[in-house]
């Protein structure tokens, strides 16, 4: 279970997330909804432990810090890839950086996300939607129990969206817990068990 208690994040005088507490059960999929600038990405980054809260804490299965971090895969909203490498090189490099190179997993994700046509292309020569799919695949290369996705469908065409939805369904079936942020809740809503809303940093059920 991911458990967040009283998370607060301030940028100067602006409070991006104010006293947010939530929990994510094993196998559960939660949608985190909210308008632009509501604090979704900030909250998700803190849950993924890539952003330090000003106060409050996050535990994963009762663990904190490095051990907790290893159980979580995070898909940031920004494209975070080695732009100069090809899709396959990115998958191999990132899986190695996270632990051990896993060529089978890389091939599986390339097939699932229909990236075969451009798997040998450099990332900086791909379209926005293609890069978004690689961004997701890279996050899924390591071992994880919890998956946090920050607007995974932003800038993706209908077909790309279907591929991602299909893959996430399979992850859910495997028992993976997820938190997804999305502007347009209708797309991923069939996947989710419940939803949370955040507005001006305040989290509501």
């Amino acid at each position: 279970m991911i458990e967040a208690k009283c998370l607060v994040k301030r940028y100067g005088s602006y409070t991006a997330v104010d006293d947010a507490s939530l929990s994510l059960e094993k196998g559960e999929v939660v949608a985190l909804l909210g308008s632009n600038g509501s604090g979704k990405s900030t909250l998700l980054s803190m849950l993924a432990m890539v952003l330090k809260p000003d106060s409050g804490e996050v535990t994963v299965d009762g663990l904190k810090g490095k051990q907790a971090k290893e159980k979580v895969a995070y898909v940031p909203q920004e494209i975070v890839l080695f732009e100069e490498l090809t899709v396959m090189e990115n998958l191999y490099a990132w899986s190695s950086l996270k632990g051990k190179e896993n060529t089978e997993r890389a091939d599986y994700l390339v097939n699932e996300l229909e990236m075969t046509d451009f798997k040998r292309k450099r990332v900086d020569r791909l379209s926005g939607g293609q890069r978004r799919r690689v961004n997701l695949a890279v996050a899924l290369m390591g071992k994880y129990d919890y998956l946090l996705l920050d607007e995974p469908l932003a800038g993706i065409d209908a077909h790309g969206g279907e591929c991602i939805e299909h893959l996430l369904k399979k992850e859910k079936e495997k028992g993976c817990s997820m938190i997804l942020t999305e502007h347009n809740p209708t797309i991923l809503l069939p996947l989710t068990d419940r939803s949370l809303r955040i507005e001006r940093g305040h989290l509501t059920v």
Partner: protein
Amino acid sequence: MNPFMFILYDIKRLFGRGKTAFIAMLSPIPVILMFAMFLAPILTQGNGVFFSGAILNEDDSESVDQLMNIIINYEVKKGNVTVYPVKEKETGERMVDEGKVAVFMHIPPDTYTDSMNGKRAVMEFYYAPSRAFDALTFYTGIKSSISVFGQGIRLVNIAVGIAEKLGLREEEIFRIWDEGVLDLQNVFIHRGRVIGKNGIFLFGADYHFRFAIALLFATCAYMSSFPIMYLTSLDLSEIFSKRSIPTKRLAVYFIARIISGAILILSSFLIMFPVARLLRQIQLDFALSVIPGIILTSFVFSSLAVLLGSMFKRGQSALWAGLYFGTASVASVAFLSDKTDIPEALACLMRISPLRASVSIFSNGMFNLMIERYAFDMFVLFSTFVIFSAAGFALYRKRSAL
């Protein structure tokens, strides 16, 4: 993944980023060509070098007269130098202002006595800015000659003192003095043979040439490390901070970055190295002795670039910091490395400066190999590599972790 693959991927990243790496690697070529076409002929012109100077010698000691005769006469006889003795300071300065001589040198009273008593002897030089290079060569030639010859005379004096204490006869003591000074003169005048040149001022000119080319090489190599700074800063602020990576793996990537960065810098050296050999027809064994220095310098500059890249959140800030640091280092090495009257702290910084050590290795190794100096410079480079790498990894880890 095999760590070798990390290095390969990182090389691909460094070389593939907007062709900046290629620009960094190839940029020394026009610089070296310009150097070879314009500056090198000035620095290396051989027997055609002609200096004219005016000297006001107010020190009436016999030793200074003797010393000046030895230093100047050899070059005067060869027709390389014309010296006008003057009786007043104003006359010498006027001759410089009127363009009749390149430099005016003033030897104040008691210079010899002061220097023998361990006091600081100050000789004044006056020159027109338009003749700065001539003046510099004249000044360096005279200064280094006085320094070397003065030390030699001091040793002969010590030998004479010992002879007196031992109770040798007067004629034997005179013989020790005469033969000692004669031997010193012979060795001194022909010391240029070490680098294949005769005379005094040519030695100074060659010193400037090899210093200039070594400084140019080290500077170009340092500048080719800029893509490493930029990419490191970008990796830490945009990539690693957004995806968590275990420390052990981060260490592998850090080492891969230093190695791939060193390969990039080494590539720019490989372009410059043959040019240096062509310019000076350096002996092969001397040239080969530079290779370990080149490799170590590449690693030092690479680790320094990673350290600077890890310090700043924005790639541009890292580049600016690198530029300022590099400019300050190059300026210090260019203008302070031959100074002996600088504060101790600054002198210490100069001794441990990796850029100075690198310049020293190239000028020493390629032109006139002195093993002790070479070993000391290699030690400085290795130590700075260890320090930069350790500090770099601490920051690298801190920046990529939560």
